[in-house]
Structures are given as structure tokens and as C-alpha cells.
């Protein structure tokens, strides 16, 4: 029960911070709101007993992705033209498309989810050892492919930076 209350609380927080991302004028404010949003999601994951994912959410998103983002914001000129006007010309159609997409997705996903009942068996399937075992057995190919993707990303980013010089 108290877990449900926490999930609702952090869900509302996630929504609010996502809204701030949408309307903030300063990219730094938007980035901070995004950090808060990601942390709220991590809290939801922790409430669902998926501690490892919650920690990876903080580690990867807050610790790596957002640090990159903040670094970029830091290095860019804050007298940019884009900081003065928030929204582009497609404001009204954009809102319409987003609402329609949301409703459509809700129609597809929302009411009738996959049927297995929620069994609260504690930490069982989501312990760290279970994750490690799954990655070494079932997902080893995906895991290796992911590392290849990472390598490709690093090489590509490096190439982009080189091109600059």
C-alpha cells in the first residue's frame, strides 16, 4: 500500500518534471528537470523492487547522459537565439499530434495489458546475480552486440570531432 503511494507520488513528480522540460526557457533548467525526472523514474523502479535497473538508471542517465548534456550546455553560448523563443511554429499541430498519439497508444496498451498476475515475491528474479546470469547465458549475443554498438558510437563521435578540426 505504502509502495503504491510512493509510486503514485514519484509518477506525479515524473510528469511534473517532464512538463518543466517542455516549457523551460533555459536549456540548463530543462536539463535539471530531466535529471529530476530520471531520478523519479529510478525511484519508481526501486519501488518495483528492480533495484539494479534503478541504479543503472541513475548511473547511466544521470551520471553519464546528463553529464554529457550539461557539459554541452556549459560550453555553448548562453546568448543563443533559441533561448529567447521557446516554441517553434508547429506548436498547435504538435500538441494535436502528441495528444492523438498518446490516446492511440493508451488505446492499444493501456486497458488490456498482458495477463499474468502480479506476484510479489520480493527481490527474487531481479537480484544482481539473476541479472548477471541472464547476461552470461541468454543474452550473451545481445550483450556482445551492444558492446560493438558502443564501440561504433565512440568511433563515430571521435570521427565527428576530428572532422571539426
Amino acid at each position, binding site marked *: 500500500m505504502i509502495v503504491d503511494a510512493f509510486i503514485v507520488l514519484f509518477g506525479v513528480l515524473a510528469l511534473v518534471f517532464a512538463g518543466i522540460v517542455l516549457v523551460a526557457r*533555459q536549456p*540548463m*533548467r530543462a536539463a*535539471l528537470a530531466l*535529471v529530476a525526472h530520471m531520478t523519479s523514474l529510478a525511484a519508481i523502479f526501486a519501488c518495483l523492487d528492480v*533495484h*539494479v535497473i534503478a*541504479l*543503472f538508471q*541513475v*548511473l547511466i542517465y*544521470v*551520471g*553519464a547522459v*546528463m*553529464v554529457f548534456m*550539461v*557539459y554541452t*550546455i*556549459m*560550453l555553448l553560448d548562453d546568448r543563443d537565439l533559441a533561448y529567447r523563443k521557446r516554441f517553434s511554429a508547429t506548436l498547435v499541430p504538435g500538441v494535436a499530434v502528441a495528444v492523438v498519439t498518446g490516446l492511440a497508444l493508451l488505446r492499444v496498451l493501456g486497458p488490456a495489458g498482458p495477463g499474468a498476475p502480479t506476484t510479489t515475491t520480493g*527481490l527474487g528474479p531481479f*537480484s*544482481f*546475480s539473476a541479472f548477471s546470469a541472464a547476461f552470461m547465458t541468454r543474452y550473451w549475443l545481445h550483450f556482445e552486440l551492444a558492446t560493438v554498438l558502443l564501440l561504433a558510437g565512440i568511433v563515430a563521435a571521435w570521427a565527428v570531432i576530428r572532422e571539426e578540426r
Partner: protein
Amino acid sequence: MMPDLLVHGLYIAYVLGFLLGLATIFTWVERKQSAVMADRIGANRAYLRIPFTQVKLVWWGLFHGIADGLKMIFKENFTPATYDRFCYNLAPWLASVPVLLVFAVVPFGGEVTPGRFFEPGSAAAEFFGDRSWRMQIAALDAGILFVLAISGVGILGTMLAGWSSNNKFSMLGAARAASQMISYEVAMGLALIAVVVTYGTVDLNDMVLWQQQAAWGILVQPVAFLLFLTASIAENKRIPFDLPECESELISGYFTEYTSMKMGLFLLSEFIEIVVISALVVTLFLGGYTLPFLRPEGFVLPGGATWELSHFAVVVLQVLTFTAKVFVVGCFQIGIRWTLPRFRYDQLMDLGWKFLLPLAALNLVVTAVVRWWTL
């Protein structure tokens, strides 16, 4: 439920007191140790006067930390003319709170059964029952991950501080701090993976128990110990890695524009981080809260001789052992600060990427191979 709340509330209060108290003591240690190393006397003027008497407790200047804190609190909160108010005020907290949070997964004692502290049958013993708790705020099964994840958040605080001050020196300091912390976090993570492979667990408490069974981690993983210590000192931005705040070039780096307690938070978080790093080093490599031959029932010497101790005595011994080890490792870190000169920035990056990272990878490979052979 109620015993849980009470026990964990006490843990949190104890850990906060432990961290802040030890951090304050380390500010004193840093001055006094440097003084003794340099044939000086060191800070010795601040004193506490017992009220209504003329008895002044000087205690070798131990209260200079309190004097500094009071000074910080009562100073004028001067802010730069143009700055980003929200980010400026948020940054010190974002930099200092994660440091405190990291300690949540560090075990500072073994199992404790509060019911055994009291007379059997008394109300307190009934309240706690037979339950025992690990002396750890959050007994997470992914302890190491928590350490890495939360300590990564602190980078945001330093970057925000540098950016929002609207000062070029702060900005340079923040850029340096961010690059340095990201670089050394990689090496630290790799070093920790080797440790995880050796112990076969990511739970810090299980690591301590493994070390009690086999041998201290510093004997099993000396390279990982060095790598972790180096990388974490670099993460803490202390000499010899204090490029982000080097006084001779960047004034104070990313917190140049901060005054009063906001700057105090940055400084205090540096000292809290010394405590936290020492606690992690102690937990991962120096046997944590365990003493040799100390078992839950008392001292059990290898010959079979036992010296029975009460549960309370064992718990107190474990907590004191942990505190003493943390203090010694912290003093060692401060000793490094007074010994080594500062790196140049390219040397710093070279050390991180060209030396520590390959060494950590090599250590990981060797560890994995050895583990594979012995498994």
C-alpha cells in the same frame, strides 16, 4: 515495522554524526598533521570555554573546525552580479548530498540483535524480539553499483557551480572537474569490477565476510587497491589531482564565486568524501569492521582458545574497529596531500587514460583468468 524504523533511524543518525564529526576532525588533522610534518606547531588558538567558568578547553586546537564552521555560517552571502540564481543555489547541495548518500550502503558493523542488549523479558527486549539487523543503512544487493551511481551525480553539482557563477575561472574549473571525474570514474569502475570478480559478490557486507573468511582484499587485489585509491582521490579533486581548484591558476576553480556556507558545503563535502573514500577502501580492501579472530561470540584464537565477549561488547568493538581503520586511511590520504606535488593537466589525463585504465583492464583480465583457474 516499529523496530525497523527505530533501528534504521538510529543508524541514519549515527552515520550522519559519524560523517560530519569525522569530517570536522579531518579538517583539524589536515592542519595539525601538516604542521607536525613541517616542524611547526599548527592551529592551537580556538578553544571552548565551559560556561560560567574560566576553564578553556584548547585540546590542541581541536575546535578550530567548529570555529571555521561558525565563521562560514555567519559570513555575508555575497553573490556575483550576474548569475543564475536557481542553479547557483542548487549546486552546493547537488555536490554534497550524493557524497553523504554513498555511505548508505557501507556496513559499519556486523549483525546486531538489539534484543540481546537488554534483560530477557524486559519491555525493550520484547519490543525488539529476536530479530537481528545488519549495521548498514540500506542492505542493497547491488552495493557497489550504488556507490558508482550516486558518486556520479556529484559531477553535476560541480559543473552547475562553475556554469552558474558566470565566471571564466569557475567555468574552466568546472570543465576540468567534469573531465577529470568522468575519466577517473572509468578506471575506478574497472578496478572495482576486478574486486567484484574476486569476491564473487557486489554486496559490500558479503565482501567483508569474504575477507574475514579468506584474507584482506589488499593482499588479494593489491593493484585494484592502488587503482581505487588513486582514482577516488582524483574523484575527490584533492592534491595531487586538484587541478579543478588549483589556487595558482584558477583562484578556487568552480567555487570561486561562492561565499559563506555555500562554499562551506563544497569544502565540507570534500572532507566528507575523504571519510567516505576511506570507508570504502576499508570495506573493500581492509576487512571492513572485522578484527582478526573476532567472531560474533568473542575472540576465537586459532589454537582453539576462546575469549567470550557479550554481544554488546562485540558490536562496540566492531564499530570502533571500523572507525579506527577509517581514521587511519583518512590520515594516509591527508599525508599524500602533503607529500605529492600537483600534476599538470595533460599528465593528469595521461595518467588516467594511458596508465590507470590499461592497468585496470589488465588487472581485470588477470583476475578473471586466475578466478577461472581456481574456480
